């Protein structure tokens, strides 16, 4: 693999939220020397990272997770107060937590992406009512887009 292929991938990352996914650990630390002349090891690591990313609905899972985190961040009610007021308060936490779990499961168990993405989208819609208008609209929108991306992702090998 050439450097051009590894770096010049077609994905635009500029407008994505700065949530770094766990697999970045595979990516070697980028030093000026390594960008100038990548070793075979860095090339392999980048290839592995890219293979991992392409063999699952990566962006769908990322957006769904980010949406859940954003809504959770907007809720932030202290837990004693939430328990104090009963199940209605807990619902504010439940929807975004399920969204985060669905987003991560889309990554780590992509075969069940249909189920996870549909639950994720439903929870994003529910968060409008339960969690600060869906994290003030931002999380609702991200969750809908992320869930739909995961829903629409398919392996290239078609049965027909």
């Amino acid at each position, binding site marked *: 693999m050439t450097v051009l292929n590894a770096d010049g991938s077609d994905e635009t990352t500029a407008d994505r939220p700065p949530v770094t996914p766990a697999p970045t650990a595979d990516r070697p630390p980028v030093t000026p020397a390594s960008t100038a002349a990548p070793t075979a090891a860095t090339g392999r690591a980048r290839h592995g990272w890219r*293979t991992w990313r*392409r063999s699952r609905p990566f962006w769908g899972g990322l957006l769904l997770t980010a949406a859940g985190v954003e809504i959770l961040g*907007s809720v*932030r*009610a202290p837990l004693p*107060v939430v328990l104090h007021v009963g199940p209605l308060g807990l619902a*504010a936490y439940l929807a975004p937590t399920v969204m985060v779990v669905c987003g991560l499961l889309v990554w780590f168990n992509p*075969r069940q992406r249909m189920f996870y993405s549909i639950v994720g989208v439903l929870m994003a*819609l529910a968060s409008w009512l339960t969690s600060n208008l869906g994290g003030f609209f931002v999380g609702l929108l991200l969750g809908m887009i992320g869930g739909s991306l995961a829903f629409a992702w*398919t392996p290239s090998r078609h049965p027909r």
Partner: protein
Amino acid sequence: MPYEEVSDPSSPMPHGKVRWRRFTAMMVAAGAVAGTLVALTAQGVLAAQFSLSGMPFTVTATRLDGTGFEQFATLDHMAPGSPNEGSTGGQLVLVVSAIDRATLTNLCQSIDLGGEHLKITAGTGNTPVTARTMVVDSDLITGDASFDHIDIGQDASTLKAVPGVTGNIGVFGQQARTVTIKNLRQNNFATTAAQFTLPGLHLSFTSDGC
């Protein structure tokens, strides 16, 4: 859907891509539901729920009518090392106001996001905002208030006007059967389980608050 892939879970997933027609179908379906939810909320048919804390936010209303009113003092603790601590040592003496059922006219809620304000207005038309079990921790409440059947100086742990909400034992508290506040203005640090119906909902980012 290539279902045969499920039958062999040990094989690695092949590379794949997003099928955009399928994405559009899902987005249209989800968008239709979201649009319906937003529209029903804006008509005041569905109630939305708020839980916020840590960030101070302002609530104003030209008129508040409530049945079941409690008020008592509490000590809130910020998260250790919170940048909002300032000179307070991370502790805030706040007034907890709880209203069982409230209607608010010309509700405006704004959250300061550092220069930019997220502003929500509702109840500006003929239909007022209604709220259930609204519990707010405030450091400032202003307005012209009148109470009906008020008990002042009751122990906060024995308050009964709002079911399920009591303070700590030995703390000053007061409760009333009904409350009316005109030109209400609150500086809040937390509101919880406030189920709001928001007719005429309008959510926007503005440079000025309420």
